[in-house]
């Protein structure tokens, strides 16, 4: 497969995944803000999406206050924010257009129709339809794209690079979500208890569609330690770090070339640490420190993937 095509497919799926994740994060912030009548506390909730996505800095460059309206605008519709849902939908569509001959017509139609609908969407319409309904729509489009992809594409390199992008993006996202809430997940604050914590914890689970899975796996009350275990070490939760890195590793083994040995090794190393890691160990290191190291190592891995597959190879003499 052409390096440029592989790279474009990888970024197409990262953009789709990012749009979905942003919708999930915003939806949780929105629901949390509805739990209180105190406007100050409501506004507090809107720091979380900015922290998770690491966009507080660019946001504060153009906005003086953090509240629902400002954050929703910035993260959902702002064309100048490259991570906004709008920008991701646009970028994904541009990517899809560039590899139109490689993806199936069904995949193209979903991504093109999403972009056409997105252009007809604005904040007024979102508030009129209901904020959560908009996020549902974004998630549904992403689910539809995933379903259409699985149902139509040949299991070749195109599929592999598409999945690689999805899992690299998703691992990054899950780690950020858990990290942003690490203070409420620390065992030391477990004794604080209370309703707000319960909602915080369940919000984390819901933002990665793992609330129901938690109930099934543990059949018990929600505790921060188990949440962390579920989202980091479980191998059967599609958004856990373990699950994502196992797929990243397997895909890299499948598409390996002469230059990709280091990328495969790095992925294998992270995968092994998740496969054989324990929660005791993670908490001994410190959850925040552990996740910071994880994010750094996956970013290094993403750089290595770029080098070995996408960077134009030099003419061989």
């Amino acid at each position, binding site marked *: 497969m*052409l390096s440029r095509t592989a790279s474009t497919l990888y970024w197409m799926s990262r953009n789709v995944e990012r749009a979905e994740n942003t919708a999930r994060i915003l939806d949780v912030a929105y629901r949390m803000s509805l739990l209180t009548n105190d406007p100050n506390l409501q506004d507090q909730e809107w720091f979380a999406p900015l922290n998770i996505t690491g966009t507080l800095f660019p946001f504060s460059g153009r906005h003086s206050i953090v509240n629902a309206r400002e954050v929703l605008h910035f993260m959902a519709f702002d064309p100048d924010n490259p991570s906004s849902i709008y920008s991701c939908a646009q970028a994904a569509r541009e990517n899809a257009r560039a590899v139109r001959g490689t993806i199936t017509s069904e995949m193209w139609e979903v991504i093109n129709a999403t972009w056409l609908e997105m252009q007809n969407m604005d904040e007024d319409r979102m508030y009129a339809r209901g904020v959560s309904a908009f996020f549902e729509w974004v998630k549904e489009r992403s689910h539809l794209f995933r379903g259409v992809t699985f149902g139509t594409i040949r299991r070749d390199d195109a599929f592999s690079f598409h999945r690689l992008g999805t899992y690299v993006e998703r691992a990054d996202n899950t780690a950020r979500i858990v990290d942003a809430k690490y203070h409420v997940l620390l065992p030391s604050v477990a004794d604080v208890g209370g309703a707000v914590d319960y909602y915080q914890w369940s919000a984390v689970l819901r933002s990665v569609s793992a609330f129901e899975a938690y109930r099934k796996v543990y059949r018990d009350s929600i505790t921060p330690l188990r949440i962390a275990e579920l989202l980091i070490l479980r191998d059967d939760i599609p958004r856990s770090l373990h699950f994502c890195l196992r797929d990243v590793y397997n895909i890299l083994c499948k598409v390996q070339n002469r230059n990709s040995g280091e990328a495969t090794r790095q992925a294998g190393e992270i995968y092994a640490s998740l496969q054989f890691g324990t929660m005791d160990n993670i908490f001994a290191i410190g959850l925040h420190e552990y996740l910071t190291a994880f994010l750094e190592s996956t970013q290094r891995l993403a750089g290595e993937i770029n080098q070995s597959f996408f960077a134009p190879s030099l003419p061989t003499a």
Partner: protein
Amino acid sequence: MGESALFNEMYAADGTVRPHYEIFANWLANTPPEKIAQNRHAADLLFHRVGITFAVYGEATGTERLIPFDIVPHIIPAVQWDRVSEGLTQRVRALNAFLHDVYHGRDILKAGKIPEQAILGNSQYRPEMVGIDVPGGIYAHIAGIDLVKDGTGEYFVLEDNLRTPSGVSYLLENRKMMMRLFPELFGMQRVRPVDHYPDLLLETLRNVAPAGTDMPTIVLMTPGQFNSAYFEHAFLAQQMGIELVEGADLFVADDTVFMRTTQGPQRVDVIYRRIDDDFIDPEAFRGDSMLGVPGLMRAYRAGRVALANAVGTGVADDKSTYPYVPEMIRFYLGEEPILKNVHTWMLGNPADLEYVLAHMEELVIKEAQGSGGYGMLIGPASTKEERARYRQRVLDAPEKFIAQPTLALSACPTFTDRGMAPRHIDLRPYVLSGKEVKLVSGGLTRVALREGSLVVNSSQGGGVKDTWIID
């Protein structure tokens, strides 16, 4: 060509429906207008969703528009088409023989059939091609020949397109759309299929691979996604199952072309390039081209890669070469041309210039090297000021212009804002030349949607129709 009588494709002069349109006319009369309106709307939505759009130069970057699709087909009886098809085959064979000749022995120039200066002094003549032997001696593998009808219903060739003719994706998509919207019409009569075009094209490209390559790697080279025909490039690559590459995806080493893949460099044998000669190799042609592949011409000259179409075909489809095509047919094939040319005045010729300047309001004057309907003067539709301005342009460099009679392009009933009305059409069949010459039945019918307009180009408000050859 008659100017007064307008040929209507569907209705004879006495108002009766022509026999080959009878089934369609009956169907139209018996189909509720609501269903038609609904399906016309559905067609728009589908084209948008599928993303069959084209970019318009001169508008904001990324602007994409739909080509309006009209549901009334352009129907041609098979008997008439088969004769046209023979004429096209004959013409393209002669054009390929001519291209081989001008880059080798130049027999036709030596025989005095075409003035030497008209060819060797043409900016589209590529001295770089002299003496290069291309596989099979074929230069124009894909040719788009524009046809029009006069008042009597006879076909004339308006223009040959031998460089990178586009539009074939619309031919295929228009048929798909008609079959999706009105499947019943295809049960009522036998409409010749067109959807095997990508197979024929792939076979043609395989035929021209350099000798010694059993399983040639074929790629389609596009200038990129901001090119107006990008949709078509992606579409054809997908239909043929070949890679769609940009210049930056390719490189040349040891006079061999490679593409950069995730598994390392892979050799490329045939390039179906949809990018002009000027831009394909910055080492050989325009040095500022960011779209091309440095060294491509070296590999081409070494016979290590085939290009379709070949470099230098522009010298044969130039409007100043066009008047000599009938002579080429006689010279190379020893046959009389089946399809006629439109009478053409060459303004570099003083007698022609004098006549044309005296009859500007009756004629169409074009730049010999213009395309896309830009920069032409349509005499009858022009104002006195426009004619005066154009006259000056012509006088500055008369050899750069040609003139033709204002054609009474045939008209086909077409849906407009105010119901069905006749609109002018032309027809572009696509002729493929590999081991043999092949074409699918029919071609792309373009329609001028503005009342009275003769400009069918999509960049200037033209639309498209499905074309049916019925037995």
